[in-house]
């Protein structure tokens, strides 16, 4: 009997009809059964008369499946496989842990330190390989990446058939595009990196027309994408980047599209939608309280806002907080000091922050658009930050445990001392963390109301543990 490890990928392949438009004409569903629990997934047409179904088993033991299809040759296929224990490094998919945090399915904490490479899969093979090599040593465990090209791009292949604006058939998908895209999602999985897939974006402006498809076309697209990609355990859904910059769609449209993704997705991958911003005049995040949203994917340039957003009982991820670089736009020309400062600010308040780089005068322009090489200084400091946060004592709900740990990030100020009022009980052993020099220096112990002297320079943090 064939075997698949827990949270691995089981794929089935059949031959079926290739005439007409199989994407629209043929329905294929596969019901997988473990004991009495049934998980039903959509199969999909992969071109040339080939149909596939992908499935991620989540329980060890025997799974049986049976197909149902509008095409007789795809209907009633049965089989089984054995789901084995997960292999090394396989912690399962990431889900919400407690209220404001994340964990893998096996309980391991997920750090959630993401970055952005919007269109890296559209680049040359060399740049794609370079991006993967960069990610291999970078501290990032999530990449935000787009499925659809922008108005200015002229790639050879798209999710849809055709590659010339005005001549694309949005009701016919390009399986070869998806096969390549999926291989890159699988590459990220191999690196232990989550693929935060951005399904729509507003940077089309009608050139391709993907920002203004009909509701039926949107639904068919989402159904096809979910059928192909949901079984990869590192997939997250971001319904749109800067959703509010797309004036062709309303909140009611986004509600419906999010609900559709929820309905199509048998695993309930993490699901959100990311707002645009015209700092500081416009800030209109989607209502993250809506039930089909799993976490708050925010664009905002102030990490201190995390405290307010935690009133919504879902994890806060500031996926865009500004980028390190020297671009001609204000979102892309922060110093490393400033970007890393924002990381510390947001994360010490119990949120998560995403990285990006936008250097426009280097060999490869620019990480947030195409990946390639990291030129900035922030990623090394973020690696340091990630280690610090991963090591903090936490309560069962994922929040830092104040009984055992206090963390004070002192920001861009330069105090000569701070006064702390520590929880009663045993003293805390303090360390001074220099977030720029990436050093941790042991101080002494303090308890109760105390004054801790400091070297009077910015970007320091105090960590007390007991």
């Amino acid at each position, binding site marked *: 009997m064939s075997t698949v490890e827990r949270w691995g990928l089981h794929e089935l392949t059949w031959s079926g009809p290739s005439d007409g438009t199989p994407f629209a004409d043929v329905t294929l569903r596969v019901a997988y059964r473990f*004991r*009495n*629990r049934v998980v039903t997934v959509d199969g999909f047409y992969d071109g040339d008369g080939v149909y596939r179904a992908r499935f991620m088993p989540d329980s060890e033991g025997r799974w*049986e499946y049976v197909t149902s299809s509008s095409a007789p040759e795809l209907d009633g296929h049965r089989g089984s496989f054995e789901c084995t224990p997960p292999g090394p490094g396989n912690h399962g998919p990431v889900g919400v842990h407690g209220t404001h945090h994340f964990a893998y399915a096996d309980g391991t904490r997920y750090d959630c330190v993401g970055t952005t490479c919007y269109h890296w899969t559209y680049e040359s093979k060399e740049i794609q390989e370079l991006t993967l090599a960069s990610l291999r040593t970078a501290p990032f465990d999530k990449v935000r990446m787009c499925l659809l090209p922008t108005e200015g791009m002229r790639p050879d292949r798209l999710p849809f058939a055709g590659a010339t604006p005005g001549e694309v058939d949005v009701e016919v998908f390009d399986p070869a595009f998806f096969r390549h895209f999926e291989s890159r999602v699988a590459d990220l999985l191999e690196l232990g990196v989550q693929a935060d897939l951005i399904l729509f974006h507003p940077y089309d402006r009608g050139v391709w027309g993907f920002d203004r498809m009909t509701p039926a076309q949107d639904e068919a697209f989402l159904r096809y994408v979910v059928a192909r990609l949901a079984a990869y355990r590192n997939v997250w859904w971001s319904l749109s980047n800067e959703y509010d910059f797309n004036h062709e769609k309303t909140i009611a449209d986004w509600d419906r599209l999010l*609900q559709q993704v929820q309905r199509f*997705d048998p695993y*309930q991958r993490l699901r959100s939608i990311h707002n645009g911003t015209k700092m500081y005049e416009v800030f209109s995040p989607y209502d993250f309280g809506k039930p*089909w949203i799993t976490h708050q994917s925010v664009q905002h340039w102030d990490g201190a806002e995390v405290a307010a957003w935690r009133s919504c009982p879902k994890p806060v991820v500031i996926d865009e907080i500004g980028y390190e670089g020297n671009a001609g736009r204000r979102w892309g020309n922060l110093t490393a000091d400033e970007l890393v400062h924002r990381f510390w600010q947001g994360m010490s308040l119990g949120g998560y922050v995403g990285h990006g780089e936008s250097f426009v005068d280097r060999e490869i322009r620019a990480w947030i658009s195409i990946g390639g090489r990291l030129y900035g200084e922030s990623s090394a400091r973020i690696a340091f930050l990630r280690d610090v946060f991963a090591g903090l004592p936490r309560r069962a709900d994922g929040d830092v445990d104040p009984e055992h740990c206090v963390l004070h990030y002192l920001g861009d100020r330069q105090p000569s001392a701070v006064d702390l009022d520590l929880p009663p009980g045993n003293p805390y052993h303090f360390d001074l963390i220099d977030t720029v020099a990436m050093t941790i220096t042991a101080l002494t112990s303090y308890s109760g109301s105390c004054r801790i002297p400091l070297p009077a320079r910015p970007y320091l943090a105090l960590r007390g543990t007991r």
Partner: protein
Amino acid sequence: MTQVERWGLLELQVDGPVGVDFHHDHDGAYVESFPDGGRWLVRFMPSLEGTWHYKLADEAHSFTCTHSTTRGPVRPAGTELRRADGTSYHPLTTTWFGTEENWSEACRALAASPFDRVRLRVPQRLAQLDQQVQDLLAVDMAAEIVIPDDRFVPELVNRLAAYRNVTWCLEPTADLRSRAEQIAELDSGRHLVSAHATNDAGVPWLTHLSVPLENLRGVSALRRDYRKPVLVDACGYEGNGSTPETSLTPQEMLTRIWEGTVRGAHVAHGEWYVDGEDGPWSGGGLRPVGVVAQRLRLLREVLDELPDGVQPVDDYRDAPTLAVPGSYYLQYLGEHQFPDRTFNLPAGTYQVEVLDVWNHSVRRTHETVTDSLTVRLPGTQYQAIQIRRTS
């Protein structure tokens, strides 16, 4: 060979805790044993006719599943509920959260009521719940088992899953997913699973919505957003309790149930008159003493006669309407005192009924229609119009 009818009950005595795989050419199921007094039992409800095979202590066994004399358990089908044989299902539910001593009298009251489904809370002794479910099965009623926490789950499901008349309703907790999936794993009857008042009913491990809802107009948005069957577990209680929820007038209670029903939901009844010697019906009293339980007989008759495929339609925005367009309409006018209502209908003849929901009266006429029909109304509250094409 042993014979069990389709959706009937096979019960086997086994040596202890075991998991048994049942196989059929076109289906399979897994059943775990449960302790019952001094013995261990396995219960299984076959879903298909034909030969079923299973192994006990390495010995092969089989039995024959014969033609059903019932319509089987309930399954979700889009936004509807259907019986496993494909026929439509329009339950009328009441709530009885009582204890053992009042059960036999309450069960007699249920059998004589317009209700065919009751929400039950898990009592201390699961054997008692078992008896309640059997008693209900005997009078062709369904039991919704409200499961407060996971203390009961393996035994509860192993014991009751083979009864075709059960559904599961979880109280939402942080580990809702794993609890719902555990039930699905053990539940060889593949019964409905919901979570009362969960903040996300869209997840695939919940078959339908179980909602508390006081404004029943909200049903339409829930059906649109979730595309699942909507069961309103609690819209309030007719009674004279000390809270706003337990002191609804009978008129208000009745109109809520009609409003939600005609918007495509299944709305549960509840009653909370505190002055009877046995306490409120929904708290475990001996019998419903209110007005609504009686007046729902009219709704019961309407539900029994609903044509297959009836759905809420948007054509009449100012009044909820169920229809099979062109052949059947059921419109509910609630607290509004319309003088008349006009329907655009295909040419034909129709039976037209004006139902006075509150006074439990029906005025029936037969009308020949060329393109539209205006139905005169008494100009009072709580009227419904039912139109059925006759030719």
